[in-house]
């Protein structure tokens, strides 16, 4: 695992955490059949927070963040996103999904559409933005992730790192207030990991609220304001990165850190 992800100084001027609650999860439980994946999850995320979620495989990290935009349904407890409670009301779900961006491990770009079409699809159909305007926005964000010249290619012709940056740009085109990342770099080669992490750091510098499942501990140290450690469907420990890495409390966390950091 790379310890340091970026050599440049991170600009922390806009990384401010407000008192406004972005996500409020309380006593949330989820089962797959009879298997209890998430147990009594309590988590409050304030606007502007950058949270990294870590934990061994199968601990329920993906399931947790997928519950936040209802890709998975929880069975007990409550999740409130931006003041809207997630229920089975389809209107609420679509509203929350258009406010919350998500990036996946395998990008999930639409292979039959060009990069530009991938980025304008949701703004045009969900937000009803005129095509010209949506394209201008898309180009703006593609420039931001540094691939404007690929706009008319298809996803299949891009490298993994480029595809993941397109996926980030695609989410940003919906102007989300919260971004969720589920192991965005796990399917990538080391050089590509860096370009994607750089994009994510820039996003953090602009004050985006981010929840990130990742094994990139360097990123967690530098960018996160809070690290959450999960095991067996529960939040075992959470702390500021400095404390979390240097002074872990729970034996499970210690074991995990010693394995992942190779100490």
């Amino acid at each position, binding site marked *: 695992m790379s310890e340091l992800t970026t050599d440049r100084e991170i600009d922390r001027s806009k990384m401010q955490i407000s008192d406004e609650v972005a996500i409020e999860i309380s006593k949330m439980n989820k089962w797959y059949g009879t298997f209890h994946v998430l147990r009594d999850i309590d988590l409050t995320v304030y606007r502007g927070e950058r949270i990294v979620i870590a934990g061994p495989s199968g601990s329920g990290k993906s399931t947790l963040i997928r519950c936040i935009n209802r890709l998975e349904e929880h069975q007990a407890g409550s999740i409130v996103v931006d003041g809207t409670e997630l229920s089975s009301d389809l209107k609420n779900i679509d509203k929350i999904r258009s406010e919350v961006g998500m990036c996946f491990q395998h990008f*999930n770009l639409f292979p039959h559409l060009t990069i530009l079409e991938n980025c304008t699809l949701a703004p045009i159909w969900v937000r009803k933005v005129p095509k010209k305007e949506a394209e201008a926005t898309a180009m703006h964000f593609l420039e931001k992730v540094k691939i404007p010249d690929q706009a008319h290619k298809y996803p299949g012709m891009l490298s993994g790192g480029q595809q993941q940056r397109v996926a980030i740009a695609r989410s940003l085109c919906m102007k989300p207030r919260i971004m969720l990342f589920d192991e965005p770099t796990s399917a990538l080669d080391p050089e590509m990991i860096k370009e994607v992490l750089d994009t994510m750091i820039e996003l953090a510098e602009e004050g985006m609220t981010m929840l990130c499942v990742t094994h990139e501990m360097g990123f967690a140290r530098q960018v996160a304001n809070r690290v959450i450690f999960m095991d067996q469907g529960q939040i075992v420990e959470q702390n500021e990165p400095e404390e979390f890495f240097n002074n872990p409390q729970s034996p499970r966390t210690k074991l995990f850190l010693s394995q992942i950091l190779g100490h």
Partner: protein
Amino acid sequence: MSGVHAHTVAYVRDTMLDQKEPPSTSVGAIGWARQNLFSGWFNTILTIIVLGLVAFVLGNILPWIFSPTWNAASLSECREILAAAGSVSDHGTSGACWGVINERWVQLLFGFYPSHLYWRPILALVLLCVALAPILFASSVPAKLIYFSALYPFIFPWLLWGGTVWGPLAALAGVVIGYVVYSVLSERVNALLGLIVGVAAALIWWFVLSGYVVDGLSSILPIGLETVESRNFGGFMLSITIGVVAIACSLPLGIVLALGRQSDLMIVKYLCVGFIEFIRGVPLITLLFVASTLLNIFMPPGTNFDIILRVMIMATLFSSAYMAEVIRGGLAALPKGQYEGADSLGLDYWQAQRLVIMPQALKISIPGIVSTFIGMFKDTTLVSIIGLLDPLGLSNAIRADANWNGIVWELYGFIALLFFVICFAMSRYSMYLERRLRTDRR
């Protein structure tokens, strides 16, 4: 190890090599034949055997095909011509009797359609090509042409069956009424109610009101085409009519059934599964018999439900069940991530289906879809069994004619050729489409 280094000699190239032609044995016709036909003794032997077989078959068939009997008026006249030309074998004369095709090809194409009205099916066919162009070759024709494609379903039955012009216009008006009701209600109340009431309004218009309106209008302004009865339809025109309608309707119906089969709503799901499994479990010929005989029993007496229309409905239902399964295969091949990608962007179910899922699922299913189309088109020949005069039905009638009694190969060969041309065209088109839609590497 250091000894190796001692022997390494520094080397710098001072002249660059020019590009040379590849050796003649690897390019051109000779190179091709070498690589593909004579690479190794086993391939060489195979090539020689196959060439021999092809020569033998052609040597027997070609003389049969090139027989000077185009103008003969009966089978016996054919035999005289062939005997005079000296092509006689142990079994009598050998050679095709093309006179039957010369005399009957128009009938094989149009059935008993009145000959002074042949321009109507021909025009319908030409317009069909125009209407298909924006669908088949979207990138190379003006996009506005799609409006004509939308109108074509109303023009086409009117051209073929004739009757007053108010009929198709009233049918069109039903669509407009339904749409207006839908858009007003979905804005004021909600979309689902709008859809239900809109469809109901259109159905009421079509089945209850439009009859009176059409009668009234046509007695005031009797504009129209001469009516042609369904029993005069026949030949290849009938095959194409049934085939095109079944193909065009089965694709959307198949999509709906495939989606229904995957639905979370129990009732919808089991209705679709039941329909698909029932239709797939029953031979088409039984459905056609149901259409031709049984349906009349269930209809209120006196209703006149056109036989061709009944056959079209059965053929559509039949191929839509197969279509649904082919498309379900395409849906199953899509990674779950595509659904999640669409969901995470806030697209609703129908948007996700229309913009993300279906384009990809249909693309994956192109070979299966086209196979179903081709199968359907060939299955139209089954209508001869319930007494419709498609090319096969006509060929039986022709062979019953005293002049042509005993002719087999020429008629079936001609019919096979016509079917082959159309089916082959469909197959080539599907390959073109697959190439065009390939976006992974270009």
